[in-house]
């Protein structure tokens, strides 16, 4: 007979689960509210979600205090790991969600927001992402990944347009394949090392000096494929433009930020030790992937006729740019990754919100898609403030100083230079120049062309409510005055990343 397992509750350290529990409890609460009373206005759910997210932020503050005092905390049979990476990325996840959820308060009525399930799923998804980033157990990562992905597929489909279903199904199919890849990769690692915990895998592989290098590489390729799907790294990017087009603009903006930061953290945990182990092949694979992702998606973005698709390709390019940090693998590079992504989330969420604000219910004849370039022609004459703000986001995305993303690019390129990747740094710089063209194209349309006949400024602020305007205002202020925040952010991030051993 088995002896009873005796584990003290103390040693489980359940407090590591607090940040994930808060959104999950919130989601359950929303479902319970729906049980008792139906047909409540969406504003109730929006505010409830906001409240739980704010509480989540507070719990993150306390875990970061704990990290500063005690260093890395393990919990729940060492499955949960609360280190600097986990904390920063959870801040980004929850912060971006805080900025996203008020975008539901549109002026026009959209199908999905009338369902409480939307908000419940949304909070479940955040919980999933939080699990994903705060574990180095491949199974736990997988569970978090799938929780969040399944919720996300549904959220996209709930937009209830022909293209949304297509997008959701496409994303689901691709995601299922990625899940398969991930489990295959994890399986091979388990077969090689007898563990699913990344640090133990690293220890075992290092101890036997990468004996089965061919198997390791197969596992790495599988994992790279799986994570590549999440990060929309070329050649696993094909879903991204269609899914972004099908999803609502706000959701597309959200998708370009939050799932990816979770993916980056996983990539950092998985690939870091492999890069530093001196397995040359992996470096070459990553190098090629990074360069192709940046360059090819820039080329595709050049020829788009729809602003949203252009932004989709541009997000792929930014992801490739940031993926370079994983390749470089120094503390400075990893800090640059987080800095970049924080600044990127402000700018990109802002620009997608601008599209969201101008979303029409019915398209006029000359407009082939929701956000074709010619819709924005002459915007400076009809809606000057909106045009200036949109131009601001575009300049920031292009990396024109002193706007937010410039500082991210600066630090990222510097980290490449510092580690001796001069050619990579030049490729990154030239890609920023290429990207300048398509961001400029929108500015050209807005500032230098004549407005379309019969358009007044109304269309650009179609959906505007106070909530939307506030979010865009926050994003714009964040974009302009980023230079004030760079130093504290950089110190915070560098300390956290360094103390987590990355």
């Amino acid at each position: 007979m088995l002896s009873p397992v005796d584990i003290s509750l103390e040693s489980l350290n359940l407090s590591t689960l607090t940040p994930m529990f808060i959104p999950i409890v919130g989601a359950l609460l929303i479902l319970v509210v729906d049980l008792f009373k139906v047909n409540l206005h969406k504003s109730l759910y929006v505010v409830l979600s906001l409240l739980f997210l704010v509480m989540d932020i507070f719990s993150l503050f306390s875990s970061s205090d704990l990290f500063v005092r005690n260093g890395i905390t393990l919990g729940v049979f060492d499955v949960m790991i609360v280190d600097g990476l986990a904390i920063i990325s959870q801040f980004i996840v929850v912060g971006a969600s805080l900025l996203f959820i008020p975008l539901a308060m549109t002026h026009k009525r959209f199908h999905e927001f009338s369902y409480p399930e939307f908000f419940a799923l949304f909070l479940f998804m955040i919980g999933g992402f939080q699990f994903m980033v705060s574990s180095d157990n491949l199974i736990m990562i997988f569970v978090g990944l799938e929780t969040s992905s399944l919720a996300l597929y549904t959220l996209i489909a709930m937009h209830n347009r022909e293209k949304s279903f297509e997008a959701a199904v496409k994303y689901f199919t691709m995601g299922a394949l990625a899940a398969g890849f991930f489990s295959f990769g994890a399986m091979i690692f388990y077969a090689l090392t007898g563990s699913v915990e990344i640090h133990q895998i690293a220890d075992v592989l290092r101890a036997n000096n990468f004996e089965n290098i061919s198997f390791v590489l197969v596992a790495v390729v599988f994992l790279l494929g799986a994570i590549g799907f999440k990060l929309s790294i070329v050649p696993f990017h094909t879903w991204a433009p269609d899914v972004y087009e099908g999803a609502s603009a706000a959701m597309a903006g959200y998708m370009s930020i939050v799932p990816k930061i979770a993916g980056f953290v996983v990539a950092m945990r998985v690939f870091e030790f492999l890069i530093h182990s001196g397995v040359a092949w992996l470096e070459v694979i990553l190098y090629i992937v990074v360069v192709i992702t940046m360059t090819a998606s820039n080329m595709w973005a050049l020829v788009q006729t729809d602003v949203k698709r252009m932004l989709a390709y541009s997000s792929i390019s930014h992801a490739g740019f940031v993926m370079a940090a994983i390749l470089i693998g120094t503390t400075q590079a990893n800090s640059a990754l987080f800095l970049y992504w924080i600044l990127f989330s402000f700018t990109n969420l802002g620009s997608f919100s601008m599209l969201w604000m101008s979303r029409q219910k019915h398209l006029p004849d000359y407009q082939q898609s929701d956000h074709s370039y010619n819709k924005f022609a002459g915007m400076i004459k009809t809606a000057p403030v909106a045009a200036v703000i949109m131009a601001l986001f575009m300049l920031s995305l292009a990396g024109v100083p002193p706007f937010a993303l410039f500082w991210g690019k600066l630090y990222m390129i510097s980290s490449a230079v510092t580690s001796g990747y001069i050619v990579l740094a030049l490729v990154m710089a030239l890609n920023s120049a290429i990207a300048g063209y398509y961001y400029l194209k929108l500015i050209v349309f807005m500032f230098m062309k004549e407005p379309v006949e019969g358009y007044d400024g109304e269309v650009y602020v179609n959906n505007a409510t106070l909530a939307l305007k506030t979010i865009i205002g926050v994003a714009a202020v964040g974009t302009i005055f980023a230079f004030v925040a760079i130093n504290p952010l950089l110190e915070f991030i560098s300390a956290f990343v360094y103390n987590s051993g990355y």
Partner: protein
Amino acid sequence: MFDHILSSLIFFPAIAGVFGFMIHKDSIRTYGIAVSIVEFVLALVLWYGFDNSVSGMQFMESIPLVPSFGINYTLGVDGISLFIVILSTFFTMLGIMSLTDTPNVKNMIVTLLFLQMTMAGVFVALDAIVFYVFWELSLVPMLYIIGAWGGPLRIYASIKFFLYTFTGSLVMLVGMLFMAYLYYQATGIWSFNLLEWYRLILPQSYQLWLFAAFFLGFAIKVPMFPFHTWLPYAHGQAPTIGSVILAAILLKMGTYAFVRFSLPLFPDASVFFMVPVAILSVIMVIYTAMVAYAQKDIKQVIAYSSISHMGIIIIGTFALNVEGISGSVFLMLGHGVVAGALFLLVGVIYDRRHTKIMSEFGGLAQVMPRYAAIFGVMLMASVGLPLTINFVGEFLSLLGFYKQSPILTLLAGTGIIVGAIYMLAAYKKLFFGEITKEENKNLTDVNKRELVALIPLVIVAIWLGVYPKPVLGPINSSVESIVELMHNKATTKEAKMRIPSLAKAKVIEIKHTTVVEEAH
């Protein structure tokens, strides 16, 4: 009183620009003029407070921006930058004053005020990143000015302008980051402070690569042959005010940056690349002068002649001695005044006839005598007639380079002769002969608004041609300190030889060390 004058010089127009949105569009012109006069007076106050006996940086300000990465908001001005800053405020003022009826005049004036901010920022920044911020930011207002108020090909021209410069600058940014990394390796501290970078002596192999990276950014801005193709488009399509600011100030950012960054940071590489750069410049001088002769459009003539003169500036800079560099800095001012004035003059005739093709004109001297007189003075200044502003700069630049290579100097000098040919030919086509077109018979002469802008430029062009000392003095003393710094930093023997030392004692010291080396 002078503690924060440089910051006010930068941010006063920007703040005024933001407030400008609140002004009613009927009053915006007056507002713009008032603001630009205040800005110009601020620049004059700066000159008044400037101590001519100091060759280093003055009015320095420093605020930490990203201290953990060594980025500080550091400003300062010396004899080299002082007058370019004054020139930029001067031209913004004249530009706004002479602004003819433009659609969306409010957007134009606000844009000009933002442009003024970036121009002041570039010339007084002493931190590489702050410099880069203003350098890049200056593209945006210019993009808008060309793209929104330009001719039929304006969108093509503005995008070409932006992308060309943007690409070059990004390569330069990589160079800056590498430079900062080298500084970090040497000292253990991250810093982008230019004055601290000056103290770093780099091995020649690094210098060559860094020089190349910086060169690409600067050369596109100047623009040097073969990167000059964006400029004729930009000038051809830009509205008058855009061409004026572009020619007078924005192009000077490139040549100024050569003096501020390339020479003192990389003295050995500057010597190494002296001949190739000079050859490019000579090609630029002669080739664009010939192209200018072939133009039918008067604005294109001036645009190409402007590129041609920029070649002389580069040659002067790369003479690497006091005469050459002082001459080139002075020529930057001279070229700014003259090219700016010529573009204003073309704007005058364009407003009346809405064409710039020279064959449409002829005999204008009969109907517009005052216009012809002013144009004549500026043309003579452009050709480099003695006692005009350009003569001083061109003469000194060529004199400086003569010490390095007489043959190349001679070739560059022929460019000036070709310059006289095409300018005089253009003048003949415009002003002499019979009036052939009916429309030209009733043209009105320059009006008061135009005179307000043109007369000060004529005065400056002649005053500084006759008596350049008040300007040349401070420039000279700052240039001397740069040359001295370069001489001391140079590591190769050739560089020591090419860059003359000003202090005699040092030469002996160096001879001594070389003797010791030989003895071993």
